């Protein structure tokens, strides 16, 4: 037992440890580099003028206010449509459906749907929506609805499954009907799942560009929400693509990148906060 390890084994141990350290170091360095690089290149370009104006070809000014608004509109429109659909489907599948085979087929389909590359959603969205209603934010939002439906549905379902059976039994035992049980006892118990799904979806919508390039267009006009949804418009990610790739405005592109990165960090933070808060409430 007390014999020292043979020299060969010692070298082997040290070598493996060094390799793993290298892997960790590289990973951390890459992430940090990306963060720092984007922040350093982006933040100095974020000015009040950039955030609060629209671009003008006459003066050569670039402003991303329309893109910020468009992003907001598309997030709102998508959530307003996807939430009732996703939550409703989840409730039906978990609480009402009796044919377990069909339920698992739908769940499997949703699983696959959430793994499809987003550019395919864009293609389908273009044919389904843009070709009928024109290229507009609403067409983009509808495409994002299909994309986010599985996320909302699955997170809600998982959360519904955590509501104890005994709550349902207790309510049925008092003579409550199915819908009353769902509304008063089951749904309040799964609010955290719905919120988590929402936040995850907002993250995906913020980050989506491929699907929107096909469907929502590139315009930079400042509109109200109704008019905005009916007209073409670029979200922040699409604007980033346009400014970097077509106009060579890397300063602006990095400014948008920095804003998106900060939003992503905020969203991650919000998700963990919600989950922690509800975990505490449960215990």
């Amino acid at each position, binding site marked *: 037992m007390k014999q020292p390890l043979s020299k060969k084994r010692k070298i082997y141990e040290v070598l493996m440890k060094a390799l793993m350290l290298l892997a960790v170091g590289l990973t951390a360095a890459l992430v940090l580099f990306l963060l720092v690089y984007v922040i350093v290149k982006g933040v100095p370009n974020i000015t009040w003028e950039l955030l609060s104006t629209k671009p003008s070809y006459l003066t050569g000014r670039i402003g991303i206010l329309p893109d910020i608004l468009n992003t907001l509109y598309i997030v709102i429109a998508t959530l307003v449509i996807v939430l009732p659909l996703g939550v409703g489907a989840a409730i039906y599948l978990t609480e009402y459906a009796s044919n377990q085979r069909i339920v698992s087929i739908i769940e499997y389909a949703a699983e696959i749907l959430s793994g499809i590359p987003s550019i395919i959603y864009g293609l389908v969205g273009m044919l389904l929506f843009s070709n009928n209603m024109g290229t507009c934010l609403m067409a983009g939002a509808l495409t994002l609805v299909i994309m986010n439906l599985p996320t909302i549905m699955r997170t809600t379902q998982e959360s519904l499954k955590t509501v104890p059976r005994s709550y349902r*039994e207790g309510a*049925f*035992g008092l*003579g409550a009907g199915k819908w009353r049980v769902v509304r008063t006892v089951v749904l309040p118990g799964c609010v955290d799942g719905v919120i988590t799904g929402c936040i995850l979806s907002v993250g995906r919508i913020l980050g989506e560009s491929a699907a929107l390039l096909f469907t929502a267009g590139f315009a930079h006009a400042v509109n109200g929400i109704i008019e905005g949804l009916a007209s073409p418009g670029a979200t922040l990610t699409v604007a980033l693509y346009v400014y970097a790739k077509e106009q060579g405005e890397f300063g602006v592109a990095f400014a948008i990148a920095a804003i998106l990165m900060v939003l992503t960090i905020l969203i991650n933070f919000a998700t963990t906060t919600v989950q922690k808060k509800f975990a505490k409430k449960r215990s």
Partner: protein
Amino acid sequence: MNSIISVKDMCLWYGDHQALKNLNVEIPEKSITALIGPSGCGKSTFLKTLNRMNDLIPGVRITGDIRYKGADIFDKEVDVSNLRKEIGMVFQNPNPFPMSIYNNVAYGPRTHGITNKVQLDEIVERALRDAAIWDEVKDRLKKNALGISGGQQQRLCIARALAVQPTVLLMDEPTSALDPISTSRIEELILELKEKYTIVIVTHNMQQAVRVSDYTAFFLLGELVEFGRTEDIFSQPMDKRTEDYITGRFG
């Protein structure tokens, strides 16, 4: 004795497995009937049939006849909500909803359409008093029900069941998850409730059956072996299997 629930030739299957075989029993009104028997003998299944809680389990098939106050409970005209309002239930593990104590008790009355605040206040207070928990919770009705002890939670669940003014109360091992002190409080409560309600209680604890019940039904392997006055069942059982069980030879 007047019977309030009468069961004739009742059988129950879970898929292909027959869990209850040809049960015939009359549940006497305003008295306490204990259902005893070893685990898996069908006593809980039988209890849950009486207010059709088994409807919630897929693959259950029931034949035979169960009448509550003379009316067939499986009749298509019967609204299961109203049946469960008449025949309430208290479960094995205390299962208050994750809401305030007040809202827990008011849940049933609200379900059945009572929205008047004054009326609800009255019902809640009366139910909590009847369940002997009013004094302990009257100052914290707005607090979450999950914050009180297990024994209090179970009495709250009894109050919640009483709030819809049932006639019969089904209790599925209501003290098996509780400590001895909480158990004796609930037993006292059950004895008091006999004045107004018919109670059917499933219990694993034979002393409990002797202490609280007027009638006892002994179940074995899905059959009702013997039914009679509790003192008779425990002093001079007619069936050898009953005798073996109550003297602790199996189970």
